[in-house]
């Protein structure tokens, strides 16, 4: 699957492109297969990975990665992958707000974030990790993966605060210059138009991204042979050759261990 997916987004060489902000949006379907793919790709390409997971436990990502043939646990124990467990955040929030708190006890990162109304404390945490990763003896690109940003909205942050946070994550990576890896995030784009703040986040981030991966359910309804459609949009100066299609769309089907991609309308169930 990793090879197929990387060919789809135009990563065909051994050394993958760096210093890109990649945004995955999903609409009426689950786009997390792209996150799993990027995690495995970065670990295999010997990037240092900083992984903030808000959606699932580490065990979940590890078992999916194992199906893809990558061992996240060993990457974590060897220090190649640093995992920030976002699932703990909501628990910490509950604890911090409880009465029986000793004065002077350190507040969790998230309570600090909510107190100041911005995600700066979380950014500083990631910034410190990026710094410590980049100063190690063997310089290799540092990539940041965040799954998923929409949960930050559920935890009480405004779209503007999240946009600022992503902006600073980009600047932090850029400052590494030679060792800059990629920033990959997932955000849900449920295009019902009811939540203005959520759609504002998607639009604001799509303006900044270098590569937009749109995962959508089929408009014609659910099908057991075609799970949805992926559209890859390359943005930025170096991709803008006139006459060349910048956007490519394919259908996909998620199988047990892989995801198969095929041109639209050529599902084996149709042909």
């Amino acid at each position, binding site marked *: 699957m990793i090879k197929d997916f990387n060919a789809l987004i135009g990563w065909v060489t051994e050394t993958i492109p760096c210093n890109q902000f990649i945004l995955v949006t999903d609409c009426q379907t689950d786009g997390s297969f792209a996150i799993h793919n990027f995690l495995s790709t970065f670990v295999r390409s010997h990037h240092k990975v900083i992984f903030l997971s808000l959606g699932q436990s580490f065990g979940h990502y590890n078992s999916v990665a194992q199906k893809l043939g990558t061992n996240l646990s060993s990457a974590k124990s060897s220090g190649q992958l640093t995992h920030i467990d976002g699932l703990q955040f909501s628990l910490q929030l509950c604890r911090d707000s409880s009465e029986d708190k000793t004065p002077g006890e350190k507040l969790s990162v998230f309570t600090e974030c909510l107190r100041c109304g*911005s995600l*700066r404390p979380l*950014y*500083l945490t990631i910034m410190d990790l990026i710094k410590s990763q980049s100063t190690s003896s063997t310089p290799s690109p540092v990539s940041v993966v965040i799954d998923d940003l929409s949960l930050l909205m559920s935890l009480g942050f405004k779209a*503007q605060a999240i946009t*600022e946070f992503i*902006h*600073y994550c*980009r*600047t932090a990576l*850029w*400052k590494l210059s030679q060792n800059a890896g990629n920033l990959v995030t997932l955000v849900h784009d449920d295009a019902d138009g009811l939540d203005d703040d959520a759609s*504002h986040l998607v*639009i*604001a981030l*799509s*303006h*900044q991204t270098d590569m937009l991966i749109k995962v959508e359910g089929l408009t014609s309804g659910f099908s057991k042979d075609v799970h949805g459609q992926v559209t890859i*949009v390359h*943005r*930025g*100066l*170096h991709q*803008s050759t*006139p*006459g*060349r*299609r*910048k*956007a490519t769309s394919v259908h996909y089907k998620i199988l047990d261990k892989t995801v198969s991609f095929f041109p639209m309308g050529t599902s084996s169930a149709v042909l």
Partner: protein
Amino acid sequence: MPSVFLQNVKGQEGSSFLLFEDSRTHSGRLLLYALANQISERFDQFHVFTTELSPDETSSYIGSEVSSKLILHDIWTDPLGWNNPAEETDPLKLNPGSDFISRLCCRLAPSVSKIVVVIDTISSFLPYHTDSQMCSAILSLVTASERISDIQNVQVLGLLHSDLHSEKTVKALRYLATTQIKLSVEDPSLSTIRDAHGVFEILQNKKNGKVKRQKEVYRVDGNHHLELSVYDQQQKQENSHGNDAQPDPTANLTFNLTLKESERIAKEKVVLPYISNKDKSELVTPPGSGQIFYEPDDADDFDEEDPDDDLDI
């Protein structure tokens, strides 16, 4: 018809504000910088306020001819002062009216009279300001020549992601603009026009009160050189070109679809089995058996090629 846009770039004297409105499907940055490069050639300084692209990426949009005139105001690296909490400056939270100007003046070389200012993007400032604060900040830039004696001409080019803001905000900025450039919402890569980066609509407010409106097509080559043409002409060319290239489906058939004159006469002579032919029917039909014959009357428009012709399907 000459291009309105080109005239605007080449012959404009006096300060102006060009507003580029783009959307997430069609980024206006390529057009913005290509035009800014072109204007800067005859200007003294080229100021860029960058908030969405890193300084490296911004430089890649700048042509080599004008790079010596470039003065980059980097608001990208630390827009909210998160990295240096000790300093009290939040660059994105500009003081309305004065900050663009003061940043500009800090780096103004002596004897500079004509400057180009690119704001990439206005959208980054808007969440921290009211519409009127932002408008007055831009207006003070455009009218800088009135307050700073050296400056004669300021061209301000601003990029706005119009799908991010309310209609009210966009309208306020439009009101300020001498020229509005609205990039088409359609994804340029899906466009039917070959060798073009995209289509935009230009709306120009003349000093005498006239408003000019036109749709144009742009293309930017590798040296950041901008090529423009009027949209309608190009469309027509494409269409006529398309007609010429239409392949003839009957060209390489193994069978014959058309009739020669002799074949047509032979075909007309054939008597169809359901048409009454008295001589024939007497010979063939045994007495007592029933048969249906079709006898067309005068009003009948009988066409054997299309028997359902009268059904109006």
